[in-house]
C-alpha cells in the first residue's frame, strides 16, 4: 500500500486520470452544462458541489455515457475519448454508484454484481463458479461480509448498498463516481462507507464524490469543484478553503430582480398548522399563514417538504397534528376534503399528479369544480367551457383550443392549466410545489407575476422551491426544512442565500450526532 501511495504521489500527481474540458450540454430551453471543467486524480477524492440544478447529475450522466455532450472534450490519461454508450464508459473504467442503483430482488448477490457482464464458460453459458468467486473477492476487498449466493431480497438496506458498490467495482474501475452515496444510510453505515472510500483511494482509484453535506465533504474529500447553474465556478484543494467560502461560491450571484414581487396587504391568519408529524417523512411542523402572504419552503431535495404538503392535502395520513383554517379545525383525509376546506396543491410532478394529460384542457380545469358547472350531477358543457375560458385566459394560456389535450401543450402552458384548475375552486390557500421547475423563462416570469397578483388579491400562497433566487424574490417569509424538520423560520434581513444554504445543509448543527 505504501508502494501504491508513493507511486501516485510521484509524477502522476498533477496529471488527472480523467478530465472534462469545456463541456456543454443543452436541453430544449435549458443550458444544463455551460463550458464546465472537472479533473479527477488517481488516489484522490474530488467533491463536486452545487445547488440543486447546478448540473451535477448531468455531469455524471455525461461521464457514464448516458448523455452525449454537445461540445467540449473528455480526456482519459490525456487522450480524448468518447462514451457513446454506458458500456463504453464502463469499458474505459468509469463506473458510478448512483443514488438509487437498480438491483434485482429475485437474483443472487453474484448475479446482481455481474448482471450484463457475467463471466462465461466454454459453452457460452454463465460460469457460476467463477462469478461467485469474483464476487466474493470484490466483497472482501470492500470489507463486506455478504454471501455471494444469497438472494438480494434477503439483505437489508445497508448490505444492498454494498452490493451496488460491488457492482460498480466489478468492472475494472479506475474512476469511481459516488452520487450522494450516503443519502439513505445511517450514521454507522456512513462511517463504513468512509472506510470504503479510503480503501478505494489506497487502491489508486480516482473518486468523484457528490454530496450536499458539508461535514461529509470536509471529512472525505481532497479536492473540490463548484458548479452553479451549469457553469464552473471554481476548484481547489479542501485544505485551502473554509466552509463559508464554499457556500459563497455555491450561491454566488446577487439575486437578480427577476421577480416582480408586488406589495400585498398582509391580513389575518388564515391557516395554522400545529405539530404535524408523519412516522417517517417529517416531524413537528408548526406555522401560520396570513392572508396575502407568500410563505416559502426551502430545503434540499429529500428534506420532506413535498411529503409534508401532500400530507396537508390528505394524500398521506399524518400521525398527529392539527390544521385550522380561520380558526376552525379541519379534518382532511383526501384531496377532496382539502378542496372543500380551501387548500389546494399544485404538485411538482405535472404529468402524473398535476394534470390528466390525455384529457382536454377544459375537462382538466373543471374536474375539481364539477359540482359548480353541473345541475343535479348532469354535465353542462357550456358552463364548463365558460369556466375553463375564464381561468385559462386570466393566465394567458396559449393553446389551439380548449378541447386540446393537455399533453399537447408545452410545460409552461401545462402548468398554467393546472393553476387555472385550482383557481377555479376559489381556494383560500394555494400550495405551489416547485412551480417553475422545467418550464421556460417566459412562462416562469408569468407564473411569478401571477403568484404575486394572487397574493395581492388576498390569497395565501405556500411556495416550495429549491431555487434560491425564486425563494428570495417571491417570499415574505421562508421556512427552511432539513431531514423532515423545520430548521428555522427567516424573514426580512435574515434572508440571504448564505443563511438559507447553511440551514438547509446543516452546517450550524454539524457538532451534534443527529
Amino acid at each position, binding site marked *: 500500500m505504501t508502494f501504491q501511495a508513493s507511486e501516485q504521489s510521484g509524477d502522476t500527481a498533477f496529471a488527472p486520470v480523467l478530465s472534462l474540458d469545456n463541456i456543454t450540454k443543452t436541453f430544449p430551453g435549458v443550458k444544463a452544462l455551460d463550458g464546465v471543467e472537472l479533473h479527477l486524480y488517481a488516489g484522490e477524492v474530488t467533491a463536486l458541489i452545487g445547488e440543486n440544478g447546478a448540473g451535477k447529475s448531468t455531469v455524471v450522466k455525461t461521464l457514464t455515457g448516458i448523455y452525449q455532450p454537445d461540445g467540449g472534450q473528455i480526456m482519459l490519461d490525456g487522450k480524448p475519448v468518447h462514451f457513446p454508450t454506458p458500456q463504453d464508459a464502463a469499458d474505459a473504467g468509469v463506473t458510478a454508484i448512483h443514488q438509487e442503483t437498480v438491483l434485482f430482488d429475485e437474483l443472487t448477490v453474484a448475479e446482481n454484481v455481474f448482471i450484463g457482464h457475467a463471466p462465461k464458460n466454454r459453452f457460452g453459458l454463465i460460469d457460476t463458479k467463477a462469478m461467485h468467486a469474483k464476487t466474493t473477492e470484490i466483497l472482501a476487498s470492500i470489507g463486506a461480509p455478504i454471501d455471494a449466493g444469497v438472494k438480494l431480497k434477503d439483505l437489508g438496506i445497508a448490505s444492498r448498498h454494498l452490493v451496488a458498490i460491488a457492482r460498480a467495482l466489478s468492472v475494472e474501475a479506475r474512476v469511481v463516481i459516488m452520487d450522494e452515496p450516503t443519502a439513505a444510510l445511517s450514521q454507522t453505515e456512513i462511517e463504513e462507507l468512509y472506510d470504503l472510500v479510503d480503501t478505494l483511494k489506497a487502491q489508486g482509484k480516482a473518486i468523484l464524490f457528490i454530496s450536499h453535506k458539508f461535514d461529509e465533504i470536509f471529512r472525505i474529500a481532497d479536492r473540490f469543484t463548484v458548479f452553479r447553474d451549469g457553469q464552473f465556478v471554481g476548484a481547489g484543494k479542501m485544505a485551502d478553503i473554509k466552509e463559508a467560502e464554499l457556500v459563497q461560491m455555491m450561491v454566488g450571484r446577487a439575486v437578480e430582480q427577476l421577480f416582480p414581487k408586488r406589495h400585498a396587504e398582509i391580513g389575518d391568519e388564515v391557516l395554522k398548522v400545529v405539530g404535524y408529524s408523519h412516522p417517517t417523512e417529517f416531524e413537528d411542523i408548526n406555522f401560520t399563514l396570513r392572508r396575502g402572504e407568500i410563505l416559502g419552503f426551502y430545503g434540499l431535495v429529500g428534506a420532506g417538504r413535498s411529503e409534508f404538503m401532500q400530507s396537508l392535502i390528505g394524500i398521506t395520513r399524518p400521525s398527529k397534528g392539527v390544521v385550522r383554517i380561520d380558526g376552525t379545525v379541519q379534518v382532511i383525509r383526501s384531496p377532496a376534503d382539502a378542496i372543500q376546506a380551501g387548500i389546494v396543491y399544485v404538485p411538482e410532478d405535472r404529468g402524473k399528479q398535476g394534470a390528466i394529460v*390525455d384529457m382536454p384542457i377544459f375537462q382538466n380545469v373543471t374536474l375539481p369544480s364539477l359540482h359548480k358547472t353541473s345541475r343535479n350531477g348532469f354535465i353542462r358543457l357550456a358552463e364548463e367551457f365558460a369556466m375553463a375560458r375564464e381561468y385559462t*385566459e386570466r393566465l394567458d394560456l396559449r393553446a*389551439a383550443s380548449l378541447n386540446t389535450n393537455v399533453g399537447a401543450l408545452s410545460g409552461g402552458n401545462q402548468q398554467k392549466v393546472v393553476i387555472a384548475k385550482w383557481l377555479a375552486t376559489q381556494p383560500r390557500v394555494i400550495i405551489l410545489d416547485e412551480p417553475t421547475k422545467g418550464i421556460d423563462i417566459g412562462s416562469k416570469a408569468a407564473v411569478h407575476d401571477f403568484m404575486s397578483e394572487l397574493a395581492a388579491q388576498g390569497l395565501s400562497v405556500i411556495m416550495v422551491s429549491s431555487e434560491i433566487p425564486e425563494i428570495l424574490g417571491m417570499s415574505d417569509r421562508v421556512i427552511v426544512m432539513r431531514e423532515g424538520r423545520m430548521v428555522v423560520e427567516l424573514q426580512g434581513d435574515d434572508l440571504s442565500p448564505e443563511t438559507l444554504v447553511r440551514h438547509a445543509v446543516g452546517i450550524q448543527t454539524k457538532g451534534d450526532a443527529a
Partner: protein
Amino acid sequence: MSLTDNAPRHIPDRLRSPLQDRLVSWESLLLAVAIAIFIVNSLASPYFLNAWNLSDATFNFTEKAMIAFAMALLIISGEIDLSVAAIIALASTAMGVAMEMGAGTPVLVLVGLGTGLLCGAFNGALVTKLGLPSIVVTIGTMSLFRGISYIILGDGAFRGYPSSFSWFGQGYVFWVISVEFVIFLVLAVIFGVVLHKTNFGRMVYATGNNATGALFSGVRVDRVKMILFLLTGLMSGLAAICLTSRLGSTRPSIASGMELEVVTMVVLGGVNILGGSGSIPGVVIAAFVMGLVTFGLGLLNVPGIVMSIFIGLLLIGVIALPRLWTMWRKRAG
C-alpha cells in the same frame, strides 16, 4: 411581461364540431361493419330477414350486453371484473335455493340482485381497500363463486321456477319485442347518460386516464371504483335472473366462459382495455355485431366451435385493421 398589459387571447372551445369527431370515430367504423354483416347475412340465408328470427337473435347478446355496459365503465376506470359469469352461477344457485324454500318471483329477483351486489362488494373491497390488482382478485373470485355453486348443486340442477318468473327471459312486451331486449335498450340509455352526461362519468374517465392525477384533483378514486364493482355485480345479478328465467333451470356450469364474451364485446366496442377511453354507443353496436355474426353463422349451420373462432378473428381483425391502415399509410406517404 405583466398579464394585465396585453389583452387575453381568445381560445376557441373546439376546432372541429363534435359531429365531425363522431364521423371519423370507432363507432362509425363499427356501425359500417354491423351493416355489412347484416347485408351478408340476409343474402346468405333466406330465413334471416324474418321478424321472429331476428327477435330470437337478440337473445344472443342481451344478457351479455347488460353486464358489458357496467364492464365498459369498469374497464374505462382502469379495472376489470372477470368473475361476472361466476357471479351469474352463484346468483342463479342462490335463487334456486330460495325457490326450494318456497320463495315467489319478487323474492327471487331480490335474491338474484342481492347476490350480485354482494359479490361486487367483495371484489370491490379487495381491490380498493387492500389495493390488490383487480385482474388477480377477480380470477380468484371467479373460482370461488362458481366453486360455491358446485358445492351446493354437485351434479344436480334446480328446476321448477314459478311460472311468473319466466316473464324475464321468455316474455314479450309487444309483438316480437322481448322483455330482455327492452331491458337492454333501457340500460343502454341509462349507462350512456351516466357515462357521457354526468359528473360521475367524467370521474370514471379521469380515474382511468390517470388515477393519481384524478386523486390529486379531488376525485374520490376508490369510491368511484367501488361503485363500479357494485354496478357490475348488480348487472351480473340481473343477467342471472334473465338467463335462469330463460333456461328455466340452474346448473353450476351456467354461463360458463361468458366473462370472455363480455370483455370481447366491450373491447370490440372501442373501449381501451388499458382504461381511459370508450363509449356506450360503441358497446351497443358491438353487441349487435356479435349477435348478428353468431345468429348468421347459426342459420348457416356452422358449429359452435367454428363460431368462437370467427368471433376471435373478428375481434383481432377489427382492432388490428386501423393500426395496419395507419402503418400502411405511413409507409406509403
